[in-house]
């Protein structure tokens, strides 16, 4: 894949930082790939090459790992990553129906990204919310009891709505808020 202008520098910057952050031993390979993917969104060829160089290991081993583990992707994901849970409970209760609904509505197959790079679609093994089956993750937001009509609703929400912040960011924002409020509480109490 051709990298756009600026992308190369961006990737090199992140890989450089990761090589600084971790011990340069083979044991750091998985955490390094995780860290790069967190920053870049996927594992570009250039990043894999540079990590192999940095760790002094064969590049094919980095490629091997990147293709072995589910977590890693070699292509940029969509802005919204839709992950349909295929755990037992979800599968039995309609996970497949949900997956097919997304495929139909987004006009892509599982593992693909829409041409406008808005949505990518994949299946995940159990996310551990079986009582909410069928479950779908959109970025880090967990959506339970997803029926075909709910799929339409979700897509509308994400397409038209304001950009949703991920659960993690929201969490952070809220924890900050919580910290403030508790310190206020303490203040009130002592006052």
């Amino acid at each position, binding site marked *: 894949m051709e990298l756009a202008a600026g992308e190369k520098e961006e990737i090199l910057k992140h890989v450089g930082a990761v090589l600084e952050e971790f011990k340069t031993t083979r044991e750091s390979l998985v955490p390094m790939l995780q860290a790069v993917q967190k920053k870049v969104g996927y594992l570009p060829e250039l990043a894999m*090459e540079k990590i192999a160089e940095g760790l002094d290991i064969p590049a094919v081993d*980095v490629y*091997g790992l990147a*293709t072995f583990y589910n977590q890693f992707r070699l292509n940029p994901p969509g802005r919204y990553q839709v992950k349909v849970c295929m755990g037992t409970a979800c599968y039995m209760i309609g996970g497949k129906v949900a997956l097919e609904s997304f495929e139909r509505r987004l006009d892509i197959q599982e593992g693909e990204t829409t041409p406008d790079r808005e949505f990518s679609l994949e299946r995940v093994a159990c996310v551990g919310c079986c009582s909410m089956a069928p479950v779908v993750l959109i970025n880090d937001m967990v959506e339970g009891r997803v029926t075909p009509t709910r799929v339409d609703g979700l897509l509308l929400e994400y397409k038209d709505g304001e950009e949703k912040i991920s659960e993690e960011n929201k969490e952070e924002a809220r924890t900050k808020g919580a910290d403030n409020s508790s310190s206020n509480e303490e203040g009130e109490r002592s006052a």
Partner: protein
Amino acid sequence: MSAKVTLTIDEKEIRAANGDILLWTALENGIYIPNLCAVKEREMPAASCRLCFVEVEGKKKPVTACTQPVAEGMVVNTRSPRVDRLVKTAFELLISDHRLGCSKCPKNKSCELQKIAKERGFRLKSKRLKRLPKKEYIDDSAELFIFDRSRCVLCERCVWMDRHVVNSGVLGFSRRGIERSVTTFMEKKLAQSPCAGKCGKCVEVCPVGALSFKDKSERENGSPEGP
């Protein structure tokens, strides 16, 4: 010097060094046990082809000879209904995923699969199992040899050679499950890889026609054809 032990393989009494691996002891004493992935020098055996099953008296299930150290008084049978069944299934499974067409294969008559079939009386076509669709992938970019992935049985020998003897780090594995394959970085052609396919050591250990020297094979044989 490790102590010597005496064991029996197919009723033949054999002396071997304590801790020797059963597969090599048998082979060196003229007793054939089917195998594809075994490499004598390899410290941790791959034990991946699952063809070298034997019965060891006292063990509940057949064991792989490539992982079994010999011991004093050990009684081994290379054949039994249970062993034959496992080996036959393993063989059929490998064949179902292996591009046949022996007559045009560069390894014809020196192929380990053919040898196993002959020794054990297996057919090269399975009646039970359907053939798995196999994606064609042939890399003839290297100067010395051709890599035909659709003939690969994933014995790991070439990768072991690449790592532990040649130290080139060109070959490795990618993906997993049914998609596991021997590959180069980003599936690049061998000619573009650091070794440029110049030494050919990996070809020497390939038990089948996946890696073959060019002077033995004619170029047009690389084209796909049925069995």
